[in-house]
């Protein structure tokens, strides 16, 4: 990247920074309306999210499933498929993953873990693939079908948790429905970072995140983000997915199979969400349990992943900081609620405000780039849905 391009891209991020500031301004007004000093509230959120080693770990733990889903959503949206079914696909992945782990308890971890993850991916992919195939071959609106399939997945989970998957020791009791605990060998290992002597003094510990719930799922998600980035912008597969997503008619004329690529982007997208579910089981809960509510298992990660994907510019790499950001809001909100008595749902509202502003900024950037024409009047273009541009494209 040349210096000039660097500064141009720096200039391009200005609207986003302004949008974020504006959103925080509006959020402050909301907080003031609740008689809460905004600075203290933001302080409490930051403190709650990153104040301690454990807080930071919890933030990353929350960010992990959001990131998996956000990677998948980035692929789907780039492919022109508005996948709102992260929740359902996550549940499908979790059900499949936990079933594998429970079915072969004698097998070594080296077998169970990859197998459970692979089957979780496959289950999410198939579940997303239903909506993908319906859209590709029968032109069924994927927004509707994925939302409906979310409901189906929740009920399917409740049914299975109260039936065949119910923990045998809970039979007959009125406890929260949950599966049996998976064997220790099937657990995703905890993630800790051994610090060299110099740094360990700085952090006051020799092993960062040593006593927290942080697990290897985070690393897996980050690796997947990088792989997906390469897939989208360095391979033929990604080229086709993006081409179909941007312009079906031109792609069709170019000989690209539209149906196959729509289905493929939904399979990949669902697979990522399925992994989120499987990782949540193997790395954190060690069983599949729910409080019976629709988001009892997922903790809304299937929806937050959509927001994080948009926030990350529909770029899997951009999704990494975006997911951490939303993870920190979720964790920090609890602290804010405890310390200032502000309802944690306030954070959901702030979430929404940020999304509105950032998407508006996206629109602004889109418009401006259209005006910056070269070599004459730019061609009039048909109205198109606004899809955020990638943070960077390979040169």
């Amino acid at each position, binding site marked *: 990247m040349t210096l000039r391009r660097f500064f141009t891209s720096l200039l391009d991020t200005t609207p986003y920074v302004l949008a974020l500031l504006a959103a925080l301004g509006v959020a402050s007004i909301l907080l003031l309306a609740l008689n809460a000093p905004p600075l203290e509230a933001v302080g409490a959120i930051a403190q709650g999210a990153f104040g301690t080693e454990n807080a930071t770990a919890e933030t990353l733990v929350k960010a992990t499933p959001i990131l998996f889903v956000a990677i998948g959503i980035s692929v789907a949206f780039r492919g022109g498929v508005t996948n709102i079914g992260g929740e359902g696909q996550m549940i499908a992945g979790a059900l499949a993953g936990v079933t594998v782990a429970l079915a072969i308890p004698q097998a070594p971890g080296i077998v169970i873990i990859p197998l459970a993850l692979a089957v979780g991916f496959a289950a999410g992919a198939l579940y997303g693939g239903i909506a993908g195939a319906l859209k590709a071959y029968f032109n069924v609106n994927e927004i509707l079908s994925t939302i409906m399939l979310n409901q189906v997945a929740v009920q399917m989970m409740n049914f299975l948790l109260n039936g065949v998957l119910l923990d045998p020791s809970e039979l007959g009791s009125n406890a929260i429905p949950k599966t049996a605990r998976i064997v220790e060998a099937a657990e995703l290992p905890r993630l800790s970072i051994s610090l060299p002597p110099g740094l360990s003094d700085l952090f006051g510990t020799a092993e960062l995140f040593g006593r927290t719930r942080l697990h290897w799922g985070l690393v897996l998600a980050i690796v997947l983000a990088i792989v997906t980035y390469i897939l989208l912008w360095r391979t033929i597969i990604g080229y086709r997915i993006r081409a179909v997503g941007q312009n079906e008619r031109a792609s069709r004329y170019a000989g690209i199979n539209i149906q196959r690529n729509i289905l493929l982007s939904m399979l990949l997208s669902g697979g990522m969400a399925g992994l989120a579910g499987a990782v949540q089981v193997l790395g954190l809960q060690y069983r599949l349990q729910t409080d019976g509510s629709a988001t009892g298992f997922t903790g809304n990660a299937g929806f937050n992943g959509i927001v994080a994907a948009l926030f990350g510019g529909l770029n899997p790499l951009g999704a990494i900081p975006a997911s951490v950001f939303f993870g920190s809001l979720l964790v920090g909100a609890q602290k804010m609620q405890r310390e200032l008595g502000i309802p944690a749902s306030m954070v959901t509202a702030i979430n929404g405000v940020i999304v509105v502003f950032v998407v508006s900024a996206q629109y602004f950037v889109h418009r401006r780039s259209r005006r*910056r024409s*070269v070599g004459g009047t*730019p061609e009039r273009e048909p109205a198109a849905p606004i*899809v955020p541009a990638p943070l960077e494209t390979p040169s």
Partner: protein
Amino acid sequence: MPDTLPTQPRISQLHMRGMMKRFPGVLAVNNVDFSVEASNGRGEIHALLGENGAGKSTLMKILYGLYRADGGTIHVDNTPLTLRSPQDAIGRGIGMIHQHFMLVPSLTVAENIALGMKSTRGALLDLDRVRARVAELSERYHLKVDPDVPIWQLAVGEQQRVEIVRALYKGAALLILDEPTAVLTPGEVDDFFRVLRQMRDDGHLLVFISHKLHEVLAISDRITVLRDGQRVDTIPTSTASKLMLAQMMVGRPVVLEYDRKPCAPGDVKLMLDNVNALNDRGAAGLRDVTLFVRAGEIVGVAGVSGNGQHELAQTIAGLRPCTSGRIRANGQNITNKSPRVLHRCGMAYIPEERMIDGVIKDFSVAENFILHDHARPPYARGGLFMRFRGIRTASQQAIRDYEIKTPGTETPIKSLSGGNIQKLILARELGRKPQVLIAAQPTRGVDIGATEYIHQRLLEERSKGTAILLISEDLDEILALSDRVIVMYEGRIIGEMPREDVDIRQLGALMAGAQ
């Protein structure tokens, strides 16, 4: 408003001096002087000529109050005029007919004219008065218009008449016409010009925006040529010639008549046999179309917009199902085959809607260049990864070969001008060395320089032995390039003739549906 029509022109002269208009990053109008003047009760038709982006429309939108000028003054009959909105312009007797008509399809002519006008009956419509005055205006200017017909039943030419009547009804003494002939057949253009002359003789001032040289020469009294936002010159039409005007527009000598070698057609390369297809509304779009194109010839398909040309191009290109009949290219049956099979048969296609069918607007120049062959070396390796070096080298070569003006290969295609986008499509399609080329409206919205270039390239392809089907609504283009001309009307081919036998009157009549 008085009941009788104003008979005297209420504007005898209008002067724009030193007009400036800046858009972000571009000076659209740069210190332009422009005037329209009546003399001895006779008005003037002043043609404003220039390529796309020369500033013609911008200058006139300033005069109509749609844009605010950044500098310059406007005087009407020596009193300064400040325009804040089109209302100010209309109030001073300035009207404008846009390229795209501003009519409500479901309302009648009279209702459309009454729209936005004050009624003498307060909240109630005063359609009888409107009707009477529409009749009066139609009479005087030979603008045949039935006030009680809904707009959607009218042909394009008739809708244009309604627009003119409406402008006159509002009391326009100066009328700006933005590319008014683009939608008309040659016959309709003649009628339209009669109306314009009548209006001029009656004392109206008319500004005629166009980039068609022969029309400007036929209708105007004076011509002002704009280039890159600046006025090149203003000259009386009597002293102007086509070649001279074209050179003023482009800023360099141009070729208007191409040096065409005689046609030496070879084997039949494209054959349509009783082809039928539906249009987007599910009605018959193509009816029993039979035609053939031989190697080394250009067959031009003429017709008024919407008579099946669009469906013809798409059906041949494999983008629209053929409901019956057969299409053969290069000896192989390609009826309802996928675009990929068509490519393999040596077909190439320059689509009519280039931003929708031709390119992916958010993709870069390079990404668009490799659209068909993205999975093949040198653009890919191992069947999975893209080869950026190969992509860059090839697209840089195309940019050089086809003189595409772009900052680089990574620039999003949508920020290029229409002419440069079309050149990229040309580079991509011709780069495949096609045997059959379908060129649909290849120069629509493209400036003269690029048009000339594209035409030369098409003629080059012809000498290489490519069979070319040229579908165009621009008759000049058809006549300049074709070896044979086919006329389409309501989805049928209703006429076919060698280029030498073309009689422009007869061609116009065929385009209007006369057998």
